């Protein structure tokens, strides 16, 4: 089923709608968002200069740094009174990225997620259990409103306590699961341990997974555990753009359909900023053309993908983005949590007895991500107690900083690699291990 007519517009109709909304957005942003106006003025660009969709590439980029520089509300295009909701994502140095929603934005968000959920097979008869963390992150509430709008029964179980999650699933007859792929697999694993056969004893037939990379290997694992008839689709979004709902897969699993009437995608060369021809891999840049509170123009997502414009077998004509292949900067997504190496560095530097060098290793451990931080002793000791103190301090501080459990590995001085120029402190082994 296709949720909205806009998903099936002809290319010409879609482009006409996009241009109209783009022009309106640029005009409004120019008037109401001084930092962006300054960017346009600097290159002598006026809203009237945007005459066609091609002119989009003349507009300056917005980056995460712009959001930080204008913390918390500097890039907002509406007065604070008009906000209905504020969300925030984790920041590297304590300052998060703040996003806001007007009443209109909430409606847009709900609409976008409804479409994606529908593409993933959701319907009014579903019982949807949302195993994303509720709170400042956009994931849980985004899916919540979208699925509710479809008419599904929501079980807002949030994260954690897998046994209870499974109890709800069994007793409430959950048919749709919202989770990160790794947590979906973890739940199946726990179910087995408890003597529950997910395929026989549970009714879950739809998995809307997001917030981390869904590799083909993981999808296969999902089928293995939850049944080969399960509909597993991944969806994409980020809080800066809105949250979940930017794009999502349909049953044909051939890329994520972008809600193009709300978001214009471009692919650029991340080094030069130059727009790349259709079909080429590069950094995804998104322009929000219907947002009120935070209409980011040419936002650099740092996600690497490519675009496919050919209409899909499902009947949708919207542009599709390939499943992500990585990120152009060094942010790591570990168990669905954004982790910046600089956060780990901050911890390492703050613990007495350690040198400034460290190495971050991320690997697959069963169905979960495992984070190991290797650190070097800067002191000598004859006491296990002291070694344990150092280890535990690092572990605890990482837990507070990232909300993740990490393994801390103490090393002798001068064990870890030293770098001239840009250090390579991260070893992400997950892709090699799938």
């Amino acid at each position: 089923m296709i949720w909205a007519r806009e998903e099936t517009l002809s290319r010409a109709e879609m482009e006409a709608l996009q241009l109209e909304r783009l022009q309106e957005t640029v005009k409004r942003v120019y008037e109401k968002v001084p930092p962006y106006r300054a960017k346009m003025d600097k290159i002598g660009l006026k809203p009237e200069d945007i005459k066609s969709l091609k002119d989009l590439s003349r507009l300056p980029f917005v980056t995460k740094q712009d959001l930080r520089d204008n913390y918390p509300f500097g890039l907002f295009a509406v007065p604070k009174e008009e906000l209905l909701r504020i969300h925030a994502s984790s920041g590297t140095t304590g300052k998060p990225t703040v996003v806001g929603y007007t009443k209109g934005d909430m409606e847009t968000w709900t609409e976008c997620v409804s479409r994606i959920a529908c593409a993933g097979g959701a319907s009014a008869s579903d019982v949807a259990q949302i195993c994303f963390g509720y709170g400042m992150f956009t994931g849980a509430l985004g899916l919540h409103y979208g699925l509710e709008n479809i008419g599904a029964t929501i079980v807002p179980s949030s994260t954690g306590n897998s046994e209870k999650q499974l109890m709800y699933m069994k007793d409430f007859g959950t048919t749709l699961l919202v989770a990160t792929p790794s947590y979906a697999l973890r739940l199946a694993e726990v179910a087995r341990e408890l003597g529950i056969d997910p395929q026989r004893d549970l009714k879950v037939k739809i998995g809307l997974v997001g917030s981390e990379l869904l590799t083909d290997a993981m999808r296969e694992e999902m089928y293995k555990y939850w049944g080969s008839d399960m509909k597993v689709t991944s969806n994409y979004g980020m809080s800066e753009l809105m949250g979940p709902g930017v794009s999502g897969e349909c049953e044909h699993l051939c890329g994520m359909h972008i809600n193009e009437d709300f978001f214009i995608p471009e692919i650029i060369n991340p080094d030069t900023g130059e727009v790349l021809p259709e079909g080429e891999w590069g950094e995804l840049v998104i322009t929000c053309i219907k947002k009120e509170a935070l209409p980011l123009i040419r936002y650099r997502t740092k996600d690497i993908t490519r675009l496919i414009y050919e209409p899909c077998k499902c009947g949708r004509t919207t542009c599709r983005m390939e499943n992500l292949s990585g990120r152009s900067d060094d942010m790591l997504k570990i168990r669905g949590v954004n982790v910046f190496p600089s956060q780990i560095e901050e911890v390492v530097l703050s613990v007495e007895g350690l040198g400034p060098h460290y190495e971050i290793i991320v690997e697959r451990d069963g169905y979960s991500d495992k984070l190991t931080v290797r650190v070097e002793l800067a002191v000598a000791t004859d006491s296990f107690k002291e070694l344990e103190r150092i280890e535990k301090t690092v572990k605890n501080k990482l837990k507070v900083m990232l909300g993740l459990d990490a393994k801390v590995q103490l090393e002798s001085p001068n064990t870890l690699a030293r770098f001239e120029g840009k250090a390579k402190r991260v070893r992400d082994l997950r892709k090699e291990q799938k």
Partner: protein
Amino acid sequence: MTANQVSVFIENRQGRLGQVLSVLKENDINILSISLADTTEYGLLRLIVNKPTEARDVLLKAGFSSMLTEVLIIKVPHQTGALQKILAVIAENNVSIEYMYGLSVESTDASIVMKTNELDKACKILAGSNIGTLTSKDIEAL
């Protein structure tokens, strides 16, 4: 009446102990006693050597986290119950032993290397009970 022990942090990784021993060999340092205690991830190597300061320095230079620790090397006669007697004296005075290991260098006596929580107090107890110890100088002369 104390002696210097060399303590070295080593990761539980193949070849690490061998590297420490190579460094000592290359610098002509003789090991008289060795103890290796470990956890799942790392261990502490404790050594009584003829030239402790030099040993620590060359190990540091080779990239090992190493230090000198003041320990007691207590002479224990080759007699049944000799060690028990010494430990009883220490325990009676509420001194805790953190770790200990053996050292055998003389034909008549054995020795134990001991680290306690209160070094000065332990020294006094041993002196008061006429229990003999070996110093770094004694060790060097061996």
